[in-house]
């Protein structure tokens, strides 16, 4: 709770010039030290699992007979053996997850941006209800969404004879349902801060409605669209429960593939593919920080 940023009422200049250390520790060295130690502890604990997976993926086996218990952390000898041994199924699962995530992100933006425009700017009776229905997927536990969609697909198959369960399109619909509210939320948050005078100015200067939308409104909304699309991608890319119900057993997404491999006696090459995903997430995060800033993500996500 101590931030050391309280305005002190001591007259400035009374203290001697602080040394580097005392400047780091501020006026309350003990309090500061406790805070730093607490932060260090929590963040080490928080990141420990990812560090262990990354470290373990480069660790050479102690014997040829490799099982999980032989994965050394910290690694004694470094090797890329596990990376070479990533099975083709894992690569297929990764490619599937990646493609699915991108498609879900794209389509949820196509659906979510007009929805956010309509919800924030439209004036019509029943708007609150429409908004509640569009945001409802956020309230439903993912397991419930999984079983609900599976039963829906069974019913559709009974009536029309076309099977959606186990197909990519069926899985896509489930993820789209999960992800669209995130786009609506983050675009809506930007829209609410939007200054309508910008659009009025464009309008007065002779731009058509369509041109105003394309050249003024959408560019201003871009940070919201980006973070909403990113959320949509991440939701699809990390989801287990929905894909567990909707994906076919041979063609599962990466997290589901990993989930199954952990329930059986698994190969350390799973550590290698998990590390690839962790690095990919890290790159995604750095790109996000460059484009919109992590703060924008938090503003639109949790708010």
């Amino acid at each position, binding site marked *: 709770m101590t931030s050391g940023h309280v305005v002190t009422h001591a007259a400035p200049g009374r203290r001697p010039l602080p040394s580097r250390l005392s400047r780091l520790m501020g006026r309350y060295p003990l309090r500061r030290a406790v805070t730093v130690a607490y932060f260090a502890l929590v963040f080490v604990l928080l990141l420990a699992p990812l560090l262990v997976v990354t470290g373990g993926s480069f660790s050479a086996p102690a014997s040829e007979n490799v099982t999980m218990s032989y994965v050394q952390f910290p690694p004694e000898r470094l090797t890329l053996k596990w990376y070479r041994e990533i099975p083709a199924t894992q690569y297929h699962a990764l490619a599937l997850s990646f493609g699915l995530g991108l498609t879900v992100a794209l389509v949820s933006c196509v659906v979510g941006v*007009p929805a956010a425009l309509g919800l924030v700017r439209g004036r019509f009776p029943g708007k609150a209800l429409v908004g509640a229905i569009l945001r409802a997927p956020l309230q439903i536990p993912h397991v419930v969404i999984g079983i609900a969609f599976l039963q829906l697909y069974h019913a559709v198959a009974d009536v029309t004879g076309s099977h959606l369960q186990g197909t990519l399109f069926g899985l896509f619909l489930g993820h789209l349902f999960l992800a669209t509210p995130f786009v609506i939320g983050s675009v809506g948050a930007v829209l609410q801060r939007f200054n309508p005078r910008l659009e009025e100015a464009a309008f007065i200067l002779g731009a058509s409605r369509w041109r105003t939308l394309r050249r003024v409104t959408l560019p201003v909304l871009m940070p919201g669209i980006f973070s909403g699309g990113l959320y949509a991608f991440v939701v699809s890319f990390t989801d287990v429960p929905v894909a567990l119900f909707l994906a076919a057993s041979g063609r599962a997404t990466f997290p589901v593939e990993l989930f199954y491999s952990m329930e059986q006696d698994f190969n350390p090459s799973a550590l290698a593919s998990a590390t690839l995903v962790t690095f990919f997430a890290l790159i995604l995060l750095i790109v996000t920080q460059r484009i919109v800033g992590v703060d924008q993500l938090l503003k639109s996500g949790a708010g």
Partner: protein
Amino acid sequence: MSNRWGLWLIGPFLLGFTLLAGSQFMFLKASFFADLGFGKVSTTLDFSNYVRIVTDRYFLRTLWLTTWISAIVASVCIVVGFPIAHVLARLRSRWTTVMLSAIVLTSFVTIVIQIFGLIIIFRADGPVNRVLLATGIIGQPFSLVGSVGGVVVGLVYSAFGFAVMLMYSVARTIPVSLDEAAAIHGASRLRIFRRIILPLSLPGLIVGFLTVFNLCMGAFTSAALLGGGRILTLPVLIQRTMLLDVKYGMAGALAAVLLVSVVALNLLSVAILKRFRAARKVVS
């Protein structure tokens, strides 16, 4: 601008409503039909699935287990995460972005990978057990998989980042000028915390607790992996009833119980947040 903006909603609404109504209707309907085995359901509508849930000790124990595990996890996340969120909201340093990014990173990586790491850390000859055994705190190696403690640890990892982000966005709304004003008038740090920061954060903390609690009630992945088939929380039981036992009716009824309790709690936290926002207007 005109009412025409409402027209933009037609497409998204039709899609969202069809998926929501279709999916929710189907499993709720199924929950009112008894299972006959092999994925077949009876054709007569009754409440037998619900009656079993409220009378069978097995289901009641699962409900109770899920509830108290969620309560523990939510408390841990709020108590451990609140100082982090509060300091991050006040801190002006380049480390702020780094630390926020670390928290976001854990939610960008699927929880399966983090559980993977946790299992390695806690395995029988892993670092944690070696230290605990050597110091004599425990006589037997602690097993993460298949124990209540393991499920709690896993759920904390799956919810902690979200909890901090939620509390961070609330902490950002508390103006520093309030602490400064109190400090200038001679309040001690403890007094500032007790009389200003805590009362202003309290609604956010309650909403945070309820949200994380809800998240845990519905959390499947970490509970399934660390429960190891021995500790069954409600979402895990739903998945097993559906996919292993192929009892659509019972799975539907269990899912309905989960859905109703989660939605009720969400409505409660929305109501609290509304009162909080109304009160905040008076403050600022």
